[in-house]
């Protein structure tokens, strides 16, 4: 693994690899290495670029190097009662492995946002600017260091969920927000998938400013839990809780969850922690229109899978057998969504591409956009290639 110390070293490494036609895989903490085809690509770690360049609480901005650890950034922001509002998490909580390695670069590369995404936006929505090295070995920057900016193309958005396939980030500026002073989780128990999505939808349609809403289906001895989180100032939470209690009275009794139970509950849904099972080795992160969440989850269960709903129905975490992979993608397609395979045995990953295939026209355009940053494909470790994909027997 290459561990350059600064921008200049990264430029040299990239230029050499581009010239020799060999690929590089950019890694932060490496917690998401298990996503995508098995590969032997040389890894370029950003771990030594780990400084906080500028944290300005009053301006709501944070400029850091990509190797800065998520846990350290969150601790720093907490000192000023601020946060990364898109609710990122250490991916080791999802995929296993050593904790506390997740870096901000890796969080941006995946674009994975947590439960608060429905109210506060995703990683992309908090990307203000960056500096990077492109596949030509050139240092460039885009965006800015202020919270409102439309100067030039919005390349910062393109960095989120780019999986390191465009350039090596060397510095990023993120928008930070005040941490809500209070939080309260209200729960309905015993709802079916459909009743839960309906209840969450009605909560989202009310002026209740729902911060997060999820549904964990019934397990052997436990009834299902449909949880709605309210955040903000005390009097406001009180008023909104009253509104929702009345609104959802026909769905059951909306009761506050104990703080500690609520804490565990949201950590579990954020990380996609479904019951571990050797029989269900594939973990999926599926995005659908929120109202389609219940039907999609029914579909997953018909193929022997289990799942739970976040984002008021718009995000499904699911575990399935390998044989169901093609069907899961069909379920996602039929719902108007897409399914990413985020954890699976190597032999499965050889055949099933991690990313949901794109429409041909969009795939071709994406390819051209990647080439605009990286003409020789130095940042393409064939991690998400679909060409060897086939339906398992």
């Amino acid at each position, binding site marked *: 693994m290459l561990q350059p110390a600064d921008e200049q070293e990264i430029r040299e490494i990239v230029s050499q690899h581009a010239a020799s036609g060999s690929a590089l895989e950019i890694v932060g903490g490496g917690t998401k290495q298990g996503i995508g085809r098995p590969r032997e690509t040389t890894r370029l770690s950003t771990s030594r670029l780990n400084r906080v360049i500028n944290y300005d609480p009053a301006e709501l901005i944070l400029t850091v190097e990509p190797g800065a650890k998520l846990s350290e950034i969150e601790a720093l922001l907490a000192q000023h009662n601020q946060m990364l509002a898109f609710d990122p998490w250490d991916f080791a909580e999802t995929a296993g492995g050593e904790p506390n390695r997740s870096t901000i670069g890796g969080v941006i590369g995946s674009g994975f946002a947590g439960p608060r995404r429905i109210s506060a936006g*995703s990683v992309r929505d908090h990307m203000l600017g960056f500096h990077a090295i492109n596949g030509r070995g050139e240092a460039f920057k885009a965006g800015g260091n202020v919270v409102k900016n439309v100067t030039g193309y919005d390349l910062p958005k393109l960095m989120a*969920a*780019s999986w390191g396939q465009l350039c090596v980030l060397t510095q990023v500026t993120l928008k930070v927000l005040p*941490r809500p002073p209070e939080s309260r989780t209200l729960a309905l128990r015993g709802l079916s998938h459909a009743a839960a999505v309906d209840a969450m939808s009605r909560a989202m349609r009310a002026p209740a400013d729902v911060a997060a809403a999820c549904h964990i289906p019934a397990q052997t001895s436990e009834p299902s839990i449909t949880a709605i989180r309210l955040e903000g100032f005390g009097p406001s939470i009180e008023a909104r809780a009253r509104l929702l209690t009345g609104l959802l009275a026909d769905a059951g009794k909306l009761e506050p969850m104990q703080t500690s139970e609520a804490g565990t509950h949201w950590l579990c849904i954020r990380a996609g922690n479904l019951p571990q099972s050797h029989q269900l080795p594939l973990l999926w992160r599926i995005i659908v*229109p929120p*109202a389609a969440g219940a039907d999609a989850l029914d579909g997953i269960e018909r193929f022997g899978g289990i799942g739970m709903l976040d984002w008021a129905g718009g995000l499904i975490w699911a575990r399935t057998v390998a044989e169901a992979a093609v069907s899961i993608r069909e379920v996602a397609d039929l719902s108007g*969504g897409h399914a990413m395979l985020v954890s699976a045995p190597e032999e499965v990953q050889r055949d099933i591409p991690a990313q949901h295939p794109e429409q041909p026209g969009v795939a071709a355009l994406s390819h051209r956009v990647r080439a605009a940053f990286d003409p020789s494909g130095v940042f393409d470790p064939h991690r998400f290639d679909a060409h060897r994909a086939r339906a398992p027997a």
Partner: protein
Amino acid sequence: MPPAMPEPDRATLSRRGEITAALRRIVPHGVIDDAASMAVYESDGLTAYRQLPMLVVLPETTEQVSQILKYCSANNVKIVPRGAGTSLSGGALPLADGVLLGMAKFNRVLEVDYANRVAIVQPGVTNLAITKEVEGEGFYYAPDPSSQIACSIGGNVAENSGGVHCLKYGLTTNNVLGVELVLVDGEIIRLGGRGLEQRGLDLLGLIVGSEGLLGVVTEVTVRILPKPELARAILVGFSDTTSAGSCVAGVIAAGIIPAGMEMMDRPAIHAAEAFVHAGYPLDVEALLIIELDGPAAECDHLIDRVAAIAKENGAVSLRTSTSEAERLTMWAGRKAAFPAVGRISPDYYCMDGTIPRRKLPHVLQRMNELSIEHGLGVANVFHAGDGNLHPLILYDANKPGELERAEEFGADILRLCVEVGGVLTGEHGVGVEKRDLMPVMFTETDLNQQQHVKCAFDPASLMNPGKVFPQLHRCAEMGRMHVHRGQVPRPDLPRF
């Protein structure tokens, strides 16, 4: 003087009749080619710059847009897309040898999907019409540029428009979930949809704010939000801008993100008050309008906290809205600030830089000095919450040289914004207006990277050329270009 545009292509101009006939075959009743009828399209909201297009085409269907672009691509004809023509940066300024593609006939709301909290609309639908469509069900579309009664959602997507509420609710880009897009070769693609995340690269994020240079949007899926139960505003006067700035910082430090937080300086306050009689105090140097929204309990709680913070920071006047009518009156002055300034000066030139908020006193001080140097007045309205300045430079276009001085003054202000750590444009876009200032903020390599992206969409540079980029590279040359130590290998390429 508008910045120089690309030299019109004589070959294209000589084929004008043939091109008109071809486009008429695609859109039989939607091609305008006589100068008198085209005059309405000769400029957008940046009225200082005017240019008649070669011809205007007004398609009604995505298929027609696709065929028009396919024809233009095959025949090397430039295209300038236009929504409602309210751009303040000249984004829809026509080209003498270009087809102006007007999207006004795409004016239908196609579907409102309350279960998924989205509306699917054609790009010519006005911003405010979306809210009108859904308000009966208690919803609204959050981004609210001041021109919302006229500006189209397609134009909002092109410019990534903001508004006074974007501190809390985001810009257009944070509220758009999907688009149907026609690429320059006529291919129709869809990006995003009704879900909260698209697959693969975030091309949707790239399209929003691309100023009509990457493709033509023919359908937009926007998020709609439940209307807050209540909104209340508080009007606070200060005897200096530093105190007003401290108050803004204090509100944010208290963990409060108001729905809106606007500042006006003395000239803007006086102009607005004379125009709409909003009851603004006239003996203050800075006025803040801070709006809180949410449940009544939240508004009451936060209004009290904001009032306390304002007093701690030396507020000399303070008034809280007690009715919806009073709140709207407080806003009326701010929302009418531009026309109000139009009454005290024959012409004004609106700038749009963003700065780190704490630099405000310094920037206003420097702006006063620049005002004296250039011999032109300036009034300031300011989205104080997010640092987006709108200095309005006062001038008289009928006095020789004043427009040029206003432009120089404006450029100095934008350079100042970048110098203090800010940016050239917060919400109006680069367009033609700030095109030649791009190198103040970006290096040659930075701009080349953006142009490589442009080439991925539009290899022949037919979509809205002459906007955003100060230097027009041919994509084939871009592929070979290698910039070493900031030196461009082809200094002979046209700079305009």
